[in-house]
């Protein structure tokens, strides 16, 4: 929790080295830190600032710009309900209202047991499955209120543990920045979790 672990520091340096400008590694490093803790702590942002050569204020400025980066602690599952047009027409607001009622939290909050954080989002590019819900960046849909309950139940019981990693793990960071992790053929976004992104330094 907090500062980057020494393993992740090493990975961070490798990522920084991939770019002609250190600063370009800012967002990949935010993902790396988020993979570690599920969210970006102030300590992590300070570490990143040092690694890419900017101020923590600039790291925070960038991190808060993006909805997928969290600067406050989140639950183990970040549940994101799309309410953009396609999903809205297919009943997204009903799903969202139901989610708030059944989880007993409002959008932006986390359940007391730390299991779920509820979010509302614009189009998640899953319109073909509207209304669409994302859990830790894995897609589910179309969902109605019952489907949502079932999904929550599956997540709670651990039945989806293979599909949905703990929050923060994107599985794409390493591949995108051309690290040796390329060798590990990573799973698809919605597919299997690959070992490469869970923290071990590849190779």
């Amino acid at each position, binding site marked *: 929790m907090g500062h980057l672990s020494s393993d992740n520091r090493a990975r961070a340096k490798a990522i920084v080295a991939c770019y002609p400008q250190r600063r370009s590694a800012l967002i990949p490093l935010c993902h790396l830190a988020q993979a570690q803790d599920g969210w970006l702590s*102030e300590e992590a942002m300070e570490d990143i600032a040092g690694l890419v050569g900017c*101020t*923590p*204020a600039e*790291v*925070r*400025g960038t991190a*808060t*710009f993006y909805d997928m980066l969290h600067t406050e602690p989140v639950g183990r599952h970040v549940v994101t309900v799309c309410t953009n047009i396609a999903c809205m027409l297919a009943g997204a607001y009903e799903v969202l209202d139901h989610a708030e009622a059944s989880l007993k939290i409002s959008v932006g909050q986390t359940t007391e047991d730390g299991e779920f954080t509820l979010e509302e989002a614009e189009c998640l590019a899953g319109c073909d499955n509207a209304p669409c819900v994302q859990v830790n960046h894995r897609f589910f849909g179309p969902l109605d209120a019952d489907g949502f309950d079932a999904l929550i139940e599956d997540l709670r019981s651990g039945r989806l543990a293979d599909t949905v990693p703990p929050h923060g793990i994107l599985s794409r960071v390493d591949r995108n920045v051309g690290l040796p992790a390329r060798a590990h053929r990573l799973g698809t976004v919605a597919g299997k979790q690959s070992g490469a992104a869970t923290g071990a330094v590849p190779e």
Partner: protein
Amino acid sequence: MSKTASVHSLRTRFAVAEDLEAPAAVSVTVDGRVVEARKGELIIEAAERAGIFIPRFCYHPRMKSVGMCRMCLVEVSGPRGASLQPACFVEVADGQEVFTESDAARKAQEGVLEFLLLNHPLDCPVCDKGGECPLQDQAVSHGPGESRFVEEKRHWAKPIEIGPLVLLDRERCIQCARCTRFAEEVAGEPFIDFAERGDRIEVAIFPGEPFRSYFGGNTVQICPVGALTATPYRFKSRPWDLEQVETTCTTCSVGCRMVAQSSAGALVRYLGVDSEPVNQSWLCDRGRFGFEAVEAPERLNKPLVRSETRLVESTWNQALTAVADRILQTLDGSGPAAVGVIGGSRLANEDAYAWVRLVKGVIGTDNFDAQLGDGLPAELVASLPRATIEETVAAGTVIVLAGDLREELPVLHLRLRQAAANDGLRIIDCAPVATGLEQVATWLPYRPGEAAELARTLVATESGDRVVIVLGRPSLAEPPAEIAAAAAVFAAAWPSARFLSALRRANVHGAIDLGCAPGMLPGRVTLEEAGAFFGEHWGSVPGARGLDTAGMLAAAASGEIKMLVLLGADPLSDFPDRDLAVRALERVDFLVTVDTAPNPSSRLADVVLPAAGYAERGGSTTNLEGRVTRLAAKVMPPGVSRADWVIATELSDRLGAQLGFESLDGIWAEIEKLAPAHSGCTVEALAAPEAADGIVIPLKPSAVQLTRRPLRLDPIATPGIDSVSEQGAPLGAGAAMSPGVEPDVDVRADEDDFADDEFADEEGPGELEALEDEVSPEDVSVPVGNRRPGLVRFAPGDWTGSGSLPPVDESPFRLVVRRGLYNHGTLVQSAGSLAPLAGSQELRLSPQEMSQLGVAPGDEVRVSTPRGELVVAAVGDGGVPSGVALLQFNAVPAHETGASALIDCSVRVVGLDVEKVI
């Protein structure tokens, strides 16, 4: 034209450039008018020169355009017809047609304004910016007049503190990014940035990391709304109640141009003016908020005379008589060498001249030194070939051999930093400990005391082509002779190198130029060479060279000097070697202080004479380039305090010698007539509006180029100045020095006028000119008595350094003492907002040596030198090389022991022992 130029022809040597830009290259049509523009110029700039104002918020002429606010949308013709384009972002193109007031443009501007106001709280009645607010103004001139937005606006806690002097009201922010761009682009301190986005966007600091910048006040000045406010001005005044004058900051020797604003007879705010050659609209916070020191309640307002053990209030007559009697008595008993005068850099040029004439011409002593131990030999400063700031930032390589410029000369630091970061200027920073230039310069550490050795290495490895050396005092624990020796090495090896002095005291360069230095007389001439000339005009001059500050203090301590005058000087807290200062002031028979505020030294005085302070009197000042600018008075001096020149004149009267000075202009006229370096720089020329940015002396034989400022300051770039002018207090109203004198300047209509001048300046702007270009005094024939003496000439052989280096260091550390911007000196401490910013004293060591000593950060250590010792907290600092220890000067209140207790100003290396306090 022959090499001999008469004074009259020098007077006509000013050429005013209407527009220094290259000839027009592009022709565009703006609202039907043909406008000639420079290639690459932005539409907004070209239109502005043609007098067409395009509304804007985010655009600032001193920062890169970002096109953030869209207020400047205009219709621009293009291959596919006219389209809306941001005028601050699109460059002119030949044949382009621009419509700033077409239906489409107006509709877009109204739309943008309505949008910007959606979340704006419209709390103008309680907003500091109300009355000078570009958002208010442009809502009226370019807004729709009505909003369709009926929903709830966003709400924030307001205001929040983002830095020690700056408050942020996020509800008022229109997200123009001027503040964040300033922080990043200009100051290089991006401690504020936008966080979040959309309707949640806010300017934010990182939690626990405030916007601790020496330049934060600039963000307040350029914020186009009332989102950023400065604590020293909040709720002090309304713009329409303000009066203002344009003047020069004299807090340090950069000499930033600024506007001093007052309300109900009290200074309330300073704003930076865009002076192209100097500060380009920026100020540092110490300068900006220093007005509080002028208004401080503890200012001296009556003469004080010692009666028994106390200083009691007195009258001018009694106090001046007491001083004059004592001078006469001392002269009778011990001769002029028993009188010494320390100080002078607080003074305006006219004051300095009056005092020099009094001290050297009437009293007859040459013991006069303005530099108070942190300067360089006056002959050296006066004789080195000089560079201006503009020439420095345009140089090939800049070598900095000075203190931390960010701490000592903040806006010079800003100019250098910007040139390095944005234009690739190469800076080599020679410093025993890393400085604020670290990020943009190559740091060449040298061992304290070995500056000349470093210079030798540099001249052996560097080409010396287009080099400017910024020369100051890297450490107060290193004697000036070492730096002089280093300068001599540079100058001897690189004859074309130029120097920019980095002595930091307010008008120290004016003081040196006018003779407030041993061995010097007014006009950058030596007593030796110019004694006869001034003797003829003044009646007499000292017979022998006098002492500098250290010499005077030593002579006072040994009883040879019997009377000391402190002219705006406080040796007890401001001289590096405190022990010497204490011995001197305790021993001297009679001590006179002429100052604006009481200080530790003045408390020991026998007579205290209250002087008028900044913005309370006019005159002129000379900055580190040798640029003379005019000061203006805006408020009344407290009580019966008087300008320093008046004090000198009255004192002289009582000594039976009439100086005959009646006005500042009269004194300047005498300076211009007699002082060789000032020749040709007339009152009329200085008073001309074209000379608002000052005149660099000595004048070049070729025409001196003055630049006319844009007719109107950009009201968005410098909000506050223009609006106050429009509301009835035009700039310059109330200026103390004959305003409105018709300038005796030639507007350069035709280059050919000067074509036959063999000195004509053929080099382009930014080129370094050869030394020979400077006026040589033989060229000037004057209609008075004899020929003017020659300017002091630089002779490298004169500067060979002081004592020898210790063969082996006896102590593990060499001491470095530097100044910080905020300290426990009188100025900062009497400005209420700045006083708390003075840090605490700490010893900085390299982290490795900290652990070798077994000292954790913050642990107390006992440091000792042969002079003294003190207990201080130690901190590890990666910018401190091993074997070196850094202390800040004046980091504790004067009654506590600080770095000055450790310094022996006569040795080349101050060795330091550090031991952990258990």
